[in-house]
């Protein structure tokens, strides 16, 4: 201090110097910390899936009445898949003892399709599994065509990957309505399922549906008209407690002695606040259509706003735009009047999580009709694969696409016999629905009436779709549909890192 000059010895000057130094240090430190790099979360790596397992409810052929078929395919066009890894893609019957299982379909390379038509009396559960290069997009469907008898109708479903939580909305167990829940367990361990049934007024007491045991490599059918009889409309929630399996519901109706149609119910999405039920089919001239929307609120009572997206745009149906759903119960709305035969998607908005389905009955006046079921679906994140489509004089394959929020586009690619072709490029305005009837193509001069389809969404927003088979039979229409679901082509690989206290702030 003694060596300081006179002015620096004054306390006030020292104070000022200290203040300046501290401020400078603080500013420098703050500026330096601003430049420190905040770790940027890298986009997850995307890889082709390497193994896919699905389970189907199974064959149920009856000679002369029901033609039951399973079809499997792997699309040819997934980039980045290691083609040298041969992999395998097989569809087998399920039997508790592996040695007694039968291989129905075996695919050899991507782009391959295969089908198996069940023989008389064959009633086996079916599982499909693919690995290696055949796994991405491996897809299995099953289709039943019953031309006569009480079960007359066309029914199709996409075989589901095994899971632990399933919702089905819109089945019924009233007079003449037989709904069966089929639980298929392709795993080597017993699975336990709790089935909860919601009726119009709330939960239906169904003790027979609690703790259903499904043995390894087998399936169990639960007759809903037995465990919860007399319900005009049902929602079924299957929760797997132990193990995992695949679930499906089939419903067959009769009206008196006349067949009333049959189909599989597609699984609806888990309850959420915003839903889209795509795929209300167009009603051809000369047919009648009844459309009933069913909404289940598994928790609190819900107030649901309904709007409809048609080819001409979206609108709010007068009188039925607000639906009150009782707590744990179901509400049904008849949208026949509002739709007036237009193809459409139904958009729902709720204050509490709900899920929904729809039942569409198509009939010619005076002769038989057929039923099809719709369900709240997820939008297509990536391509959807449908292995088995037909185009004949009487039978058309239609795709009902809806872009409820933003303008979208879709590329439809067909593949068969080792060839692939672009079956169409379509663009949809925001808030519109489009019905695409897939053209028939000739390969090497031969008409291709059975082919696979890949639907690839193009826009940034949400595109919903339904694949519908529409046949005009001699005794009335035969229809069936299921929603297009994103194929398991690619999987996001999240970056994993070790952390001693997981879930902690650190």
């Amino acid at each position, binding site marked *: 201090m003694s060596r300081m000059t006179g002015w620096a010895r004054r*306390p006030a000057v020292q104070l000022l110097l200290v203040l300046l130094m501290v401020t400078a240090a603080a500013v420098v430190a703050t500026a330096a910390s601003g430049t420190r790099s905040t770790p940027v979360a890298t986009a997850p790596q995307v890889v082709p899936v390497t193994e896919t397992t699905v389970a189907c409810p199974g064959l149920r052929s009856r000679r002369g009445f029901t033609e039951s078929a399973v079809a499997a395919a792997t699309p040819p066009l997934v980039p980045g898949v290691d083609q040298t890894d041969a992999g395998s893609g097989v569809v087998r019957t399920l039997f508790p003892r592996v040695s007694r299982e039968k291989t129905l379909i075996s695919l050899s390379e991507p782009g391959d399709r295969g089908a198996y038509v069940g023989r008389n009396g064959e009633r086996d559960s079916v599982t499909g599994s693919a690995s290696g290069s055949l796994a991405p997009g491996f897809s299995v469907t099953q289709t039943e065509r019953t031309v006569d008898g009480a079960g007359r109708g066309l029914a199709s479903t996409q075989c589901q990957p095994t899971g632990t939580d399933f919702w089905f909305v819109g089945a019924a167990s009233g007079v003449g309505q037989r709904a069966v829940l089929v639980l298929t367990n392709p795993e080597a361990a017993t699975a336990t399922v709790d089935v909860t049934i919601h009726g119009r007024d709330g939960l239906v007491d169904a003790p027979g549906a609690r703790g259903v045991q499904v043995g390894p490599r087998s399936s169990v059918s639960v007759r809903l008209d037995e465990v919860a009889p007399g319900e005009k409309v049902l929602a079924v929630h299957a929760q797997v407690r132990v193990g995992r399996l695949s679930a499906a519901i089939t419903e067959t109706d009769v009206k008196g002695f006349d067949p009333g149609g049959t189909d599989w119910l597609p699984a609806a999405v888990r309850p959420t606040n915003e839903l889209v039920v795509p795929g209300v089919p167009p009603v051809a001239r000369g047919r009648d259509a009844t459309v009933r929307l069913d909404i289940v609120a598994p928790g609190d009572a819900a107030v649901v706003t309904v709007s409809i997206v048609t080819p001409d745009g979206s609108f709010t149906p007068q009188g039925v735009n607000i639906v009150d759903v009782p707590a744990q119960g179901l509400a049904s709305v008849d949208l026949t009047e509002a739709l007036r035969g237009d193809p459409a998607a139904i958009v729902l908005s709720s204050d509490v999580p709900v899920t929904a389905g729809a039942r569409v009955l198509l009939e010619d006046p005076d002769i038989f009709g057929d039923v099809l079921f719709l369900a709240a679906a997820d939008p297509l994140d990536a391509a959807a694969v449908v292995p088995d489509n037909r185009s004949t004089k009487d039978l058309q394959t239609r795709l009902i696409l809806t872009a409820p929020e933003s303008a979208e586009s879709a590329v439809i690619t067909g593949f068969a016999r080792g060839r692939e072709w672009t079956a169409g490029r379509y663009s949809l305005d925001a808030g519109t629905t489009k019905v695409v009837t897939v053209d028939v193509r000739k390969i090497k001069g031969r008409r291709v009436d059975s082919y696979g389809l890949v639907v690839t969404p193009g826009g940034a927003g949400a595109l919903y779709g339904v694949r519908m088979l529409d046949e005009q039979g001699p005794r009335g229409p035969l229809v069936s549909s299921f929603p297009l679901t994103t194929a398991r082509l690619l999987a996001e690989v999240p970056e994993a890192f070790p952390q001693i206290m997981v879930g902690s702030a650190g």
Partner: protein
Amino acid sequence: MSQDTQPSPMPDDRGVVAVVVAHDGEEFLPRTLAALASLDPGPDFVVAVDTGSADSTPALLATSSAVDRVITLPAETGFAAAVNAGVASITEPSGWVWLLHDDSAPSPDSLGALLLSADDQRSVAVWGPKVLGWDEPRRLLEVGVSISRSGRRHTGLEPGEQDQGQYDGQHDTLAVGSAGLFVRREVWDELGGFDDALHFFRDDVDFGWRAHLAGHRVVVATNAVIHHAEAMARGRRVEAPRDPHAVDRASALYTLLANGRTSTLLFRWLWLLVQTLVRALGYVLGKAPREAAAEVGAIWTVLLRPGRTWRARRARAPGRKVPARSLRSLFPPPGQQVRQTFETLAGSLSVETDVHPSTILESGPVEEDLDSFVASGSGRLGRWVRRPGFVLFAGLVAIELIAWRGLYRGGALHGGAMLPMPSGASDLWQSYTASWHPVTLGSGTMAHPSTAVLAALATVLLGHATWVVPMVLVVGPPLAGLLAYQVTRSFGLSARLRLWVGAAYALNPVFLAATAQGRWTTVLVGVVAPLAAVAVARGVGLGSAGGAAQAVSYRATAVSVLLLAVMLALAPLLIVPFTGAAIALAAWAASRRARVVAFVLAVGPPVLLLPWWSVVAGDPAVLLLEPGVPLVGETLAPWQAVFFDAGGLWSAPWWFGLGVALATLVAVLRAHQVAPVRAALAFLGLCLAWALTVDAITVTPDTSGQPVAVWSGSVLVLAVGAGLVAVSTAARGSRMRLQRATFSWRQPTYAVVVGLALLSPLVWGVSWIERGADDPLVRGSANPLPAFVRAQSALPEQIRTLVLAPADGQLAYTVLRSRDAQWGDVETAPRVDLLTSMDAVVSDLASGRGSAPVDELVSRGVQYVLAVPPVDPDLEVALDSAPGLLRVSNPGQSSLWRVELAAGRVTVLASDAKREVLASEVPGDPVAAQVQVPGAETDRLLELAELADDGWVATGSAVGQTRDLPTPTVSDWAQRFIVGAAPTEVAMVVDNPWRSALLWAQLVAVVALVLVALPGRSRPDEGAV
């Protein structure tokens, strides 16, 4: 009975001969001789024995009229021998012998009183007087003596007890002191006088004991009084035995062994051996090596020479007429000694209060409130409670207890940076010294040194490791405040100012943020800091007030090194301010010795943490991080550090520190006048600069792989302390100065700053009470595993669970074993680069691509996969569809899957890649493994699901042969060994000799420092002659 200079006529059979033993006693002899001369009645004959005195003693004796005969013996003659020679020289027939020392002055009527008593009770052979002090004539020295079981001379008196007639009368005693011993001549002759083998001490006790055993009584008659200087025992005589303590102990043991009961002799010998060793250890701890050597010497000279004891006992055998058992009442009860030790200790504490307050360290670093002992006697508690320091402490504890309201019960304390504590101190010690840590896939990383501090604290708390952190977080800040209050006393501050300092320090925002975030290390650093500051100041000899230099203290230096090492162990980043401060101390030190001390302070603490530096060498980032979960929540704008805001998940708004920061700034004005202000501000500047530096950087430790903002709280808490010292010392007398100065802008400015500063602790306290200490700190189960999975994890298969949690688009995971995540796991986790294969497995599993890497999971011992809430639905779908994984019912919020294949920690791989799980159970050791490998046709691979490490050693015993198992040349992530075809019993352990050696070296260094740091022992004060 005349005072004649003539040899008196031969006394009758009741004549008394006095024997005075003198040696270099010119200081006392005149008074003794005068007292002899004035005795009424006096002895019939006085014999003086001079043992070769070098001073004027012979002349004094020769010229004295009281002495009838002088016998001169050589200088090395012992006391007993001198007495015996003196008595033996009495050829005249005499009835009584009266022993006196050259420093013992009998009162004029003492002999008369003894004779009168002897007349009354003829059965008594030995009489003794009441012995009072030489210079303090009211102080009681002896009313008969006895001997304790340890050989200690026992008077039954309290130290410094005053004679108020409380012991007056005649009572039986084991023995009487040799000063004033009044014995029948025939009994003396019968017993053979004193035992020559006893040179100086216990000769009187031995004599009395023998008299009893021979059937005589020994009685004290307190109406006879003698004043005794006890010159030899008190070291006041120059020519005392060279090592009085050694002679004392040897005599004590000899006396006990020579006279004790035969039946218990062996037991007594063992007891004395153990006791002497314990005492020797105590002296070593008390840094009294001579006394320790004396104890060991006594073992050598007495206990290990049974011949000596044998001879002594044989010599005594003929005289024994009474069973030893009957003397029991004459010995002090066993508890007596403990009580006496306690009282002495308490007494020494009250003595210490007289010393200057800044010597707080002298009574040990945890001594809190020395003033409380100033007043002894009744009302001590009441006075103590009214002390301001206690009121401050109690108030602060109350505030903390209220703020702690949400955290009193309900499971393990964790959250924020805290992990749950293991249950016992031994777990912590084990964790500190372990070569392998069962964390995720296992790692050999050395534990953090804070674990050792924690373990030491847990040991002090009787092994309750879970109490440590609540204690530190609740009692720590109040204790820090109290210490700040105590320490600032040496600055000469007023009590009110110091109360403010204490409250402000205890409630400072850094403590609050650290408590809320569970950073107990920072709080503990703040508690230790005031003690360390005082220790350092004393170590380098800084003056307490005014800068007057004092001598360098090595004891304080040792304390400083220990305390700084503790702080460094808790917060390694303090090494920079510590080194900076040590350099500054060395630069401005007054003496060369102080510079050496400063150097020791800079180098010592890091050297003490030696084993841990191997970790720092591998990953320097850990030097900047405090232990605990790395918190990457809100980060801090570094400028807030200027206002003592440490930032983090919860901290007070920055302006909370404004008052103290402004006051500190104003203290700069006084820096040129007051040395402590200057020093405190310099240290504050150093800390602040370092805090700003570390706040601006982010480090990525190898054990987490995630970037972490450095927590500067431990540096800032030192800055707060330095700031408070600067402010309070600068404020001393400022009111008077301002009142004297003319009114200007200064007075209002000061008023505002002082007001803000005074309000600060209030604002902090209120906000702390309102906020409460919980969140993110919580109590509850820190283990997400369902009960049945935990139970299964504890089985010998030692399965593990993979726990997944989504984190910002990424996936955090851990592998849990049977024990919960606990403190120290973060630091001992395996390096992230060793877990890349595990990362890939987890990513693959969570992607849902299908090919679930089940075999990879099984090889890592993973039997269950758990997704903790909030469960990501995509993750659930992915795991649901993963082949080989099956969902298991779990009633909780989380989702659980089981791997279909059986998994375990130790597996044996057959040639067909089939894996067989082996049970391994080593009780109490989660690391070592012991398995029975069944036989097979070929060699197989034994896989231990721990990360491969050179330290693992497997010993296999097959068909009677034991050998180390080789490891395969192709290495995998896991630890593998090759097992032969025969059935083999394999033991696997981790061996890390280097670490063990370093830990031993650390232990030795710490023990040595503690020994130096312990308070010194005052000189022994026992055994009187």
